[in-house]
């Protein structure tokens, strides 16, 4: 069961209009893993997440989730299958309460019946959200908004959670807290695929990592091996 692949991306090309953003990108994510995608701003990492979420479609190559092709699906169909994205910038609904934000996270049919138990789980992970449940989204601090975005992602009862730049703009203590929560989420059986600019943090938290540079995967593998890699040490640690 652990040998099974959860997400398999094979040699995809992705365009924004006529501009190519990803070239021959391949990656594999196994159930229960924590996988990091490392890259700078223009590397195409958000595009890759958006393609997995079906907001964009690849012009070449294939994406399989649990063995089934998801190349041509609509975004809401991927949520039904169990892929949940916590977008860059959090994307919480500013004029909705914390509770409503969480409720809308359970919009897809399969998640609705599990709503109450998922809500309890989210409040357990993030007690702050229970305290603030009647407040509007835009009155929360950055860290709280990120908690809300993650909590909301959990409400869809996902198998795979995609997190785009979770730590952006947040204080190190808050980031530590959030990564600790991610470990808790992994223990509940949810696979995690996160995008990070901070190399050190990524390699500290993930088991497997992919490094994306200008739309191509330049390095990938178990984190332990990557840390030893000459190129990484030179490029990112200056050693």
């Amino acid at each position, binding site marked *: 069961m652990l040998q099974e692949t959860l997400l398999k991306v094979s040699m995809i090309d992705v365009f924004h209009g006529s501009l190519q953003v990803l070239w021959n990108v391949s990656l594999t994510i196994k159930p229960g893993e924590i996988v990091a995608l490392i890259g700078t701003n223009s590397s195409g990492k958000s595009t890759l997440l958006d393609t997995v979420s079906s907001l964009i479609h690849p012009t070449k190559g294939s994406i399989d989730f649990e063995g089934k092709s998801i190349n041509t699906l609509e975004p*809401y169909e991927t949520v039904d299958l169990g892929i949940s994205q916590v977008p860059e910038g959090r994307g919480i609904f500013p004029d909705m309460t914390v509770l409503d934000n969480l409720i809308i996270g359970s919009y897809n049919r399969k998640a609705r019946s599990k709503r109450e138990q998922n809500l309890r789980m989210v409040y357990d992970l993030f007690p702050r959200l229970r305290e603030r449940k009647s407040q509007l989204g835009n009155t929360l601090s950055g860290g709280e908004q990120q908690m809300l975005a993650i909590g909301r992602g959990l409400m869809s009862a996902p198998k795979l959670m995609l997190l785009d730049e979770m730590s952006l703009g947040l204080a190190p203590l808050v980031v530590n807290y959030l990564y600790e929560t991610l470990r808790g989420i992994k223990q509940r059986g949810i696979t995690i695929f996160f995008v990070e600019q901070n190399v050190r943090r990524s390699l500290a938290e993930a088991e497997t990592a992919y490094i994306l540079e200008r739309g191509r995967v330049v390095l990938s593998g178990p984190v332990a091996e990557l840390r030893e890699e000459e190129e990484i040490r030179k490029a990112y640690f200056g050693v």
Partner: protein
Amino acid sequence: MTDLAELLTPIVMGVLLGGLYALIALGLSLVFGVMKLINVAHGDLVLFGSYFAYAAMTLLGVDPILSLVMGMPILFAIGFVIQKYLMKRAFGISMEAPLLIAFGISLILQNVQQITWSPMARGLTTPYALESFSIGPFRFPLCYLLDFIAALVVTLSLREFLRRTYLGKAINAASQDKRTALLMGINTGRVYAFAFAIAMATAAISGVFLGLTFPFTPTSGISFLILAFGVVIIGGLGSMLGTFIGGMILGLAQTLGGYFASATAQMLILYIIVLVVLAVRPQGLFGRKQRT
């Protein structure tokens, strides 16, 4: 003392009339709040509701309000189809395309109605439409009261629907942030279609009450569209309660303006109020501050 009592008439008339304006504007507010679409065909679609009720009344002998049992589902379906098959494609072409389509629908409706019903003014002249009721020594048209009650019922129903149901919350979410709404598993295409359909159902209702209150012609749609715009601007886009209050304000502005100034000054005062709101608080009384 007499002055205050005299004022009662324009005040009560203004508030009740405001109900009709709010009722007409609700659909416009919903569509603009959700899809950022200025549905310039809204007035004509409301008139379609009036003519439908008129047909039911004259050809089938059905009471206009009862005819809503047929009228609402029909306009709901028309709205669903317009959004799903016309507007959705238009949005994919450009931001202006849906506006042109709405304009086209408006022209088609006006002309079809003119051919079918002639430019002659019509009215939903039921027995009770001519009744009046009294508050103290003053008498008011019953239909104005019915307009107000209908407006209250529809406003509160819409508000609760948007607040409490999954579809309502989805409509809200999609209007705040479409991309994130998609990531929540919301089928925004379908949600928009439902929103438009609901707006059309309210247009059916407002068409009936409009017809009960005023005589109408195929080109009446435009004047009510402009009024509805005023209501939505004052009350705030996308806020059902705001639209209701906006309607009251506009109704009062009109009747009190007519009372203190003159009948011709009524509309001018109305427009001045709209301009002031646009200058001072463009999102309206209850609107959300628009984020770019």
